[in-house]
């Protein structure tokens, strides 16, 4: 496929086949996601399967205080120190809605092209658990704040991951709700310790329709959502800190038949695990069904050590959340420019239009801008946004250097990012910052050093010893010979020393020229610009 292909929103064109013996060895299931339409090598000869994946993403709202109480939101703190009387469900306490949480949800809804419900309602969802002090969670089940949106995300496909495919997933709704506390288990002494610091933190639950068909798509969709949330600032979405958690709903069916029974894989907290968990679950279901078994509508967890999903302890009897309207919270009313009432306190008004006008550029918009502004390729633009801080670094370097951005990008992605990946570092942790890189590229651009010399300098810079590129160049004597006459003389010397080769070239064997160039390079300790050398040699040979 030569050009990016826009994938259909609903139908996933991937076909899955069971990979013989794959599951039990614990190895990765067939990486079918990369080649739409292709099937794994080991075919079992059974009809193809389609997988359907839907997601419920819980994003912690980035705010100072919790959604219904005034206690602080912070990841680490002494146990039960960020807990108000309401969070601990002391009798008589009442919820009061945090305005910031409403704004965050509206921003997110608008960014995902949702319709914002001007009137939304709160409900209680009842179940008993040690980390849920009130015995119910306040959520929005009947009428959430935003509905019917869309998320576009990109997949890198093709042999070299260089082709970009745009996919869509429908957003069913976004609802505001409370997070629960944390329980820490001490299996040895069979005790559970409850920390309510997280209880009551505001969450946005983003429900994605089952428009995805494999782990890679799920991960890509969530990644894009994460970038959007971070751009908006409505959530920091740091999965490692539990600010973004995903529940995946997975089922399989034969093309043309109705959807199969789905299982839910809960509380996945990394993109890698998400992809693995979903793919594993798909394979597991396929295997199960092909062996004549059935799929239970159950909840499973992902064991990342074993790389598989395991059933969570089954609750005897069925769950019934007995949803009921939350009587302590009147309807949430949002306004737009038209419906804004005249004499109302500013603090009490959330104006959808006002928020819309102030939305920052979303990642997709930024990608397009980068391509247009700098002339780089779409896949480069994708990579720039995909790595935290890389886009900023790139733009900083471009600003500080005279080198064409199209050349800068190569250095940033292949060289710098390559090194970062090799040493498993983030952009923030890079020992080479944008200024150093810019200096280096300027040296290259001015012809002070050659490309290979520049790579050597980069290696040195990576050691982080604080030297500037120029210092390293001087130390290692990597400067290109600028003196034309000197170069001329060396070329002359080489030619004189290798008359046979000269003859061959003159006879028509152009390839031998490279040998001469190589000899010149050796004589100059690689401090000659090969292009220049070639020019000089050719000129001499033609005399």
């Amino acid at each position, binding site marked *: 496929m030569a050009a990016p292909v826009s994938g259909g929103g609903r139908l996933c064109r991937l076909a899955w086949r069971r990979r013989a013996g794959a599951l039990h060895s614990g190895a990765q299931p067939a990486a079918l996601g990369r080649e739409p339409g292709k099937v794994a090598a080991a075919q079992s000869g059974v009809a193809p399967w389609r997988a359907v994946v839907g997601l419920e993403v819980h994003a912690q709202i980035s705010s100072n205080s919790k959604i219904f109480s005034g206690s602080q939101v912070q990841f680490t703190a002494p146990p039960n120190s960020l807990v108000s*009387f309401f969070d*601990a*469900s*002391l*009798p*008589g*306490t*009442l*919820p*009061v*809605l945090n305005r910031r949480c409403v704004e965050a949800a509206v921003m997110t809804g608008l960014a995902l092209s949702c319709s914002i419900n001007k009137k939304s309602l709160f409900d*209680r969802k*009842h179940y*008993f*658990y*040690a980390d849920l*002090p*009130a*015995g*119910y969670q306040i959520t929005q089940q009947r009428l959430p704040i935003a509905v019917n949106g869309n998320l576009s995300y990109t997949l890198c496909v093709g042999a070299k991951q260089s082709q970009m495919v745009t996919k869509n997933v429908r957003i069913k709704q976004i609802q505001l709700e409370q997070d629960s506390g944390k329980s820490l288990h001490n299996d040895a002494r069979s005790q*559970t310790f*409850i920390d309510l610091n997280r209880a009551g933190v505001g969450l946005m639950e983003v429900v994605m329709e089952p428009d995805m068909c494999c782990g890679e798509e799920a991960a890509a969709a969530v990644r894009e959502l994460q970038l959007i949330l971070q751009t908006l600032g409505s959530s920091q979405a740091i999965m490692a800190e539990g600010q973004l958690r995903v529940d995946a709903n997975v089922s399989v069916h034969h093309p043309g038949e109705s959807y199969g029974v789905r299982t839910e894989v809960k509380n996945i907290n990394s993109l890698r695990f998400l992809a693995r968990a979903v793919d594993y679950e798909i394979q597991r279901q396929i295997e199960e069904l092909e062996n004549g078994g059935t799929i239970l509508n159950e909840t499973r967890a992902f064991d990342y050590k074993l790389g598989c999903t395991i059933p969570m302890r089954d609750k005897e009897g069925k769950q*019934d959340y*007995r*949803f*009921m309207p939350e*009587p*302590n*919270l*009147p309807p949430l009313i949002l306004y737009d420019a038209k419906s804004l009432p005249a004499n109302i306190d500013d603090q*009490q008004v959330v104006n959808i239009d006002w928020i819309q006008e102030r939305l920052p550029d979303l990642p997709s918009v930024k990608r397009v801008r980068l391509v247009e502004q700098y002339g780089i390729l779409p896949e480069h633009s994708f990579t720039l946004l995909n790595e935290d801080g890389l886009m900023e670094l790139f733009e900083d370097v471009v600003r500080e250097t005279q080198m064409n951005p199209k050349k800068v990008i190569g250095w940033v992605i292949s060289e710098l990012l390559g090194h970062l990946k090799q040493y498993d570092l983030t952009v923030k942790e890079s020992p080479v910052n944008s200024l150093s890189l810019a200096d280096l590229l300027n040296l290259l651009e001015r012809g002070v050093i050659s490309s290979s010399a520049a790579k050597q300098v980069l290696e040195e810079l990576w050691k982080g010893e604080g030297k500037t590129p120029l210092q390293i160049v001087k130390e290692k004597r990597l400067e290109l010979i600028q003196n034309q006459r000197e170069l001329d003389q060396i070329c002359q010397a080489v030619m004189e020393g290798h008359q046979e080769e000269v003859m061959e070239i003159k006879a028509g064997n152009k390839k031998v020229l490279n040998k001469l160039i190589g000899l010149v390079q050796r004589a100059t300790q690689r401090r000659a610009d090969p292009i220049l050398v070639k020019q000089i040699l050719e000129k001499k040979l033609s005399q």
Partner: protein
Amino acid sequence: MLRAALREVSTALKEGQVSPTELCQRCLSLIKATKCLNAYITVTEDTALRQAEESEKRYRRGQSLGDLDGIPVAVKDNFSTTGIETTCASNMLKGYIPPYNATVVQKLLDQGAVLIGKTNLDEFAMGSGSTDGIFGPVRNPWSYSKQYREKCGQNSHLENEDSSWLITGGSSGGSAAAVSSFTCFAALGSDTGGSTRNPAAHCGVVGLKPTYGLVSRHGLIPLVNSMDVPGILTRCVDDAATVLGVLAGHDPKDSTTVQDPFNPFKLPSVIDVGKLCIGIPKEYHIPGLSSETLKVWSKAADLFENAGARVIEVSLPHTCYSIVCYHVLCAAEVASNMARFDGLEYGHRSNMDKSTESMYAATRREGFNDVVRGRILSGNYFLLKQNYEKYFIKAQKVRRLIANDFVNVFSSGVDVLLTPTTLRDAVPYVEFIKEDNRTRSAQDDIFTQAANMSAFLHNLGGVRNLCLKNIQVLLYSRQSLTSDLYKKIYVNLSKEYGFKVCIWEEASNLPTQGPIQERAEKPSLQVCTSTEHKWLQHYFLTGNAKPDQI
């Protein structure tokens, strides 16, 4: 002095005729003397005396905080009070000491009121007799009145008295008894389906249920969040207005309070019922209504008519369903509100520790009485997926029909509705306990809960109920009239109309001695009105507590 109205006591305090400490001590000793009433669960003697002392200092400096400074008040034991045990008369919260004050309690304290104790109630405010709490039933002070005992035709044998004492009604019976027996000047109760008005009627005091949203519920341990309101019990209407003035207003901690500004008012003394249109809802005449009540109802209607008001019959056709509706919605909310009681963060905790679930189950079994458990189970039943539409949503639809009934009546020109409060007088305890709690509530709440239900009325700001000495006034205010939202309409039936006053002798004479003067007519009436008519300034005063005005 203990019999005086708030304003008088306040004046007396300001002028130094009596000191807050004296007042407090007198109330405390009266409480001790009337212990048999079982009106108080906790008497906060030390705290009260300290507060009285502070108040005294303020009076000496001439810096009193207001009309309530130094006034002993009691608070129903389902309001959170910092450092003071708050039990809701349940094993589940025995020993629970809240770390914060309910907003209404705080407002009283900020005005310098002296908190004299926490009063008894039905467990978690579920009941209409104040008989179903773990601390035992509350006795109606009227059980000891000469009139009642004569009526029972008995002499003062202790055991006969014991078996024939009357209930206070509920669930704020402790507060009503406290006020009625002069141990405090005002008390906070709560009203969900009549829990302030019912005991007020039975104990012969003034019971005010403010409009839902007028007074903060923050700190009131909820029964039904969408219907609960803190109630005010006092001995005369002026006092109720004073206390309401202190308590009302938006509370940022309670999202269900109205954000419009509240202007406290004083009741003027001008009376004119001439332009009123009184409606008598015919569906409120139900079997079981005692003949006495019926008599008084008719008499009240006549009185209004003779005073120049237009009295007509009106219809609220869905009245008979309101109690059913209330029952379903109430049970559902109760089931939800009680889910937090699991023993983990506060309250009773069972020793069972095999698993969280079994600990919760055991805690709730040990902590709740039958009534509470029964409502939790039926509430959960109505909320089940398969029943939600059939019962809960259905009840919500019927609620709208009931609400529309009231809207229709008030938009047809009627200003005030006049109805009974309860079916009959306070009954003896022995009779009361013959039926189970839900049945009793169904009967006793029949008139009062419609007002709580209709507090949710579409387009109507709400209903305010005032249960005066045996007269209950239901006041509506249309939401559209923001400035008049809280203007009260009172219909004044002055002493000329024959409503007499009951007076207690010094309570130290209880329970066996002292002549008691005539009781007021026992049955109580409700008067509902709408404030759409701005020009109406009607005041409802039934006889006040001063002996010289009889």
